[in-house]
């Protein structure tokens, strides 16, 4: 018997359709075989696809959300994957990072000659999407394997990426400039003349000149 599960949030609704996998003993309200899914957004085209597409969406959106909690908005996905998400800050050197700038979700169709679909999400819509995907992933009635790695702490190098390159380079570059200027100024100061060796006679003469003058008789 066909099953339909629906997961709702304010800006989106995800609907799964499938069947219980009787070969592994499923019965009743369980989806073991996914026949299709659809994601409806408010004011945007509806997305549909197979299990692989939903998995690709999860594998990109959830790690991106994980990074955002740490303040890192590095793009996830790529040209070789059907889904990609990146911050909409535009300029990577922006001091404000992606805060409030939104997120650009790009979905590439497997159909030839179909241009990719780009969806611009604000922070609230991204949070809704993450909640919906979490609900599906953790729903005990959906017995599909999503192949999602556990969230991991970020390494120092990954965290440094959240600081704009300009700001990261400012301190070392400033140090190099100060060192170069100091060295340049040092070269401008003339070196002191070397001391000439003084002969013993010359050394005695000033000593005699320093003696108190003897008063001459009138």
């Amino acid at each position, binding site marked *: 018997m066909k099953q339909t599960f629906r997961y709702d949030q304010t800006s989106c609704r995800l609907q799964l359709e499938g069947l219980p996998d009787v070969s592994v003993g499923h019965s009743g309200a369980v989806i073991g075989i996914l026949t299709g899914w659809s994601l409806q957004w408010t004011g945007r085209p509806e997305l549909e696809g197979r299990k692989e597409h939903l998995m690709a969406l999860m594998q990109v959106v959830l790690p991106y959300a994980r990074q955002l909690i740490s303040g890192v908005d590095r793009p996830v996905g790529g040209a070789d994957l059907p889904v990609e998400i990146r911050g909409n800050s535009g300029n990577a050197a922006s001091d404000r990072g992606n805060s409030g700038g939104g997120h650009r979700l790009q979905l590439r169709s497997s159909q030839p000659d179909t241009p990719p679909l780009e969806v611009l999400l604000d*922070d*609230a819509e*991204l949070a809704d999407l*993450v909640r919906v995907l979490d609900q599906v992933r*953790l729903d005990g009635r959906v017995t599909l394997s999503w192949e999602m790695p556990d969230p991991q702490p*970020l390494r120092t190098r990954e965290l440094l990426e959240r*600081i704009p390159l300009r700001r990261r380079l400012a301190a070392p570059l400033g140090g190099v400039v100060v060192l170069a200027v100091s060295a340049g100024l040092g070269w401008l100061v003339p070196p002191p003349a070397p001391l000439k060796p003084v002969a013993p006679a010359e050394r005695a003469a000033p000593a005699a000149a320093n003696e108190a003058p003897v008063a001459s008789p009138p």
Partner: protein
Amino acid sequence: MVQTLPVQHPDTLPVGGVPLPRRGVERLDLMLLAVEALDLNGGEAMVWMSEQLGFSGLFPNRVELWKRRCHNPLRRNTRRGSLDEAETDALIRILCALADRLYPMLRALLSQAEPEPLSRQRWALFEARLAELLNERMNPRRGGVQKLLDPQAGADQRRRLIQALALGAGPGGFERMRASLRDAAP
């Protein structure tokens, strides 16, 4: 047949065995403070949520809960030592559950579809309340506290606090939040 669902929480925890780093303790307490700034009864809600989640053994009363939060080095009266894993996990679970409860408010703050004056008014209210709590409980000589209190320089950080709460609010939020608070020191 259309059904909506009750979501189960994962029992498996991906990372563990090490105490939360200093920076993680700071962020955890700041996010709990942000929850208090959003909810005037946040302190009470925290105690209530702790009981609801079955942490009465770890935090038998509000004083014990407050003492654990005082391990934040940014506090005026900070406590030495470190929190053990069970305590930090419990605090993170309480934080995620409170964020889930406040999700409509978090969403309203983050949404760009909201009318601009209303959104500005909500942010002003949150920021005023957060500044009040920061001045009351945190050490104002700390650079991190000064930055968070700065109307311009701290705006980005305050928004990130709200964004982190929103993304940690869902059923999978605990795992994400826990991993994030264990990030390496930058």
